């Protein structure tokens, strides 16, 4: 009796998880010849989620997207979309739409024709698709009319209805982008795949399209996988981000979780603006407040001598005197951005300057080569092992 209840509960939980998973990737491997570009990827994308694959170029994020789209075939592992195994299915049977970096619009077709291609291919019969005589086939005219209505509705929702008669060559980059989006949304697919869609736009338009994409995603409520190398896009748009390096997903989580609690040195470095400060742990422990930091790091310091600490520019501040500082060094450079400023401080014995975020008023009084003292917030220090993995505070984790 008791066990059956547990089973029942377990089953319902299992079923709801399956229903909530739009895409499941299991043990996916992709090799080109002897070169392995993706190694054992496991990924579950939730229904309606905006998941961003982010990483430096060559990390395999586009390959993963193309595998999901069906443009590449997996060497090992499998992919299912909406509970259906599609590992061997051709792209058109996967019910996914993709927006390419260069938009890949059909140059010889008008905007309206571009957007109607996916609908024509799906709804019209083989004979009805033929040029010239196709529209004379029985029932073709009703189908064509409904396609026209839907294309116009999609165009209206993207504010491109005035461009329907134009050809791609007559459009600006931003307009082409919208047409590519329109061609993707018009047929209401299970999943949207976007491959660096904003990277060909100028900076201002990119910021604008960012918010528009987020709104579009919210309005359609569709599952969306977004590939970018731009951490700002990843942080601002996504429900979750998956950070990729060298064919592996190093960490997956909400933007805040990945930012505040990185699992790996590379993740912390990549999701960081203007950059992550890294120093040997010994250098910080040797400072006047070394004992304090040692205490707050707990068991970590004892676990090895080759540890690296990482902290973001906003995790440190200028200290009033050497007595209360963790580090001291000379000012190399001041970068003022109006609302904030970054000081690059060259430390004695450190390979790269430490970047400190300060108020612009603080930066304006500093001179180059001036000696400054830096205090680090111990709670915002990440410690990494030699292989780059995060070393966590055992005591704190236990508490």
């Amino acid at each position, binding site marked *: 009796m008791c066990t059956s209840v547990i089973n029942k509960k377990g089953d319902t939980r299992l079923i709801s998880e399956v229903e909530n998973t739009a895409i499941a990737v299991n043990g996916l491997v992709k090799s080109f010849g002897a070169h392995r570009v993706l190694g054992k990827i496991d990924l579950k994308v939730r229904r309606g989620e905006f998941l961003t694959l982010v990483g430096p170029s060559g990390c395999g994020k586009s390959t993963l997207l193309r595998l999901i*789209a*069906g*443009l590449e075939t997996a060497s090992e592992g499998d992919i299912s979309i909406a509970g259906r195994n599609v590992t061997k299915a*051709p*792209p*058109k049977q996967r019910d*996914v*739409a*993709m927006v*390419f*970096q*260069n938009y*890949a*619009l*059909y*140059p*010889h*077709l008008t905007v309206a024709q571009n957007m109607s*291609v*996916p609908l024509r*291919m*799906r709804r019209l019969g083989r004979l009805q*698709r*033929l*040029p010239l005589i196709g529209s004379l086939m029985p029932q073709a005219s009703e189908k064509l009319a409904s396609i026209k209505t839907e294309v116009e509705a999609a165009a209206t929702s993207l504010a491109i209805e005035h461009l329907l008669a134009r*050809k*791609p*060559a007559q459009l600006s980059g931003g307009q082409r982008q919208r047409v590519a989006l329109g*061609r993707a949304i018009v047929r209401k697919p299970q999943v949207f795949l976007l491959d660096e869609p904003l990277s060909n736009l100028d900076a201002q338009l990119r910021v604008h399209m960012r918010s528009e994409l987020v709104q579009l995603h919210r309005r359609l409520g569709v599952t969306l996988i977004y590939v970018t190398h731009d951490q700002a896009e990843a942080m601002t748009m996504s429900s979750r981000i998956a950070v990729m390096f060298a064919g592996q997903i190093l960490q997956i989580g909400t933007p805040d979780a990945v930012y505040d609690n990185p699992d790996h040195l590379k993740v912390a470095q990549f999701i960081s603006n203007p950059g992550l400060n890294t120093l040997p742990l010994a250098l910080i422990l040797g400072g006047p407040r070394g004992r304090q930091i040692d205490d707050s790091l707990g068991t970590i310091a004892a676990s090895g001598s080759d540890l690296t600490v990482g902290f973001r520019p906003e995790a440190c501040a200028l200290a009033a005197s050497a007595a209360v500082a963790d580090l001291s060094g000379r000012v190399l450079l001041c970068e003022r951005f109006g609302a904030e400023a970054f000081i690059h401080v060259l430390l004695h014995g450190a390979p790269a300057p430490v970047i400190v975020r300060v108020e612009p008023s603080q930066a304006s009084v500093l001179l180059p080569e001036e000696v400054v003292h830096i205090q680090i917030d111990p709670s915002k220090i990440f410690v990494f092992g030699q292989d780059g993995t995060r070393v966590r505070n055992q005591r704190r984790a236990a508490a």
Partner: protein
Amino acid sequence: MSAYIASNNRSGARYGFLSLPTLVMPATILLLAFSLVPSAVVILLSFTNYELGMPGLHFVGLGNYSDMVSDHIFWQSVRNTALYVAIVVPGSIFMALLVALLLERRRFMTRFYKVAYFLPVTATLVAMATVWEFILHPTFGLANHLLTSLGWEPVRFLADPNWAMVSLAIIGIWQSVGFNVILFLAGLGSIPREIDEAAALDGADGGLDRFLTVTWPLLGPTTLFVTLTTAVNSLRIFESVTVITQGGPDKSTGVILYSIYLEAFRYFRTGYASALTVAFLAVTVTLILLQMRVSDRKVHY
């Protein structure tokens, strides 16, 4: 525009010897010497009764042209040439497109096939004509062997006036396919991969759908160029006629260029041959202008 001229003047002043006329001169001289002046001489000769080797010539006005219009041999050569072009152009383009599409999908031995198809372009027809005469021979030829083994009547390819032009057209297709294959392969290669992929995701991922949605429209510029070059080249059919049939049998393969050749170098009627040349030139130029106009309207998306 004025800024453009001003900047030219400025650079002209700085590099005095590199003025505009100096820069244009070499091309102009070559164009004049090898193209425009000879054409003008031919046009002038076409209004005379000049015969090669004769000491004098008389101006005969449009006499040569009126002779041409009433010359039934000339009109037959026009009809023969038209038939040849009408077979070679579509035949060669269709074959070349088919071969290019098949080769594009191949991974192995692509280079071998490309070279194999291109060989007839580099081979001299004068030498290859012997081989063709063997293949098309009425009694022991390979072609008739094939036809009879399929249960058809043998054909006297080069001896039957109804077949001779068609036979030459088949040779013409064989000769021009290789070059067109290379052009179509280049055209196929210039179709962005993403557009093919977008078509695959949109549902046009194979066969006729992909061809009609993406491949054929995007090959437009290539197809136009191939059509133009094949048409102009096949209009100039001469070698195979001279080597294989000499215009026969019964003048059934007398083509325009062969008529010009006979008039100019056999009968030495240079004036009349010039008139034929001018007419031929007019047709070629018209064809090119027509194609250019179509390309401006249709090909550039």
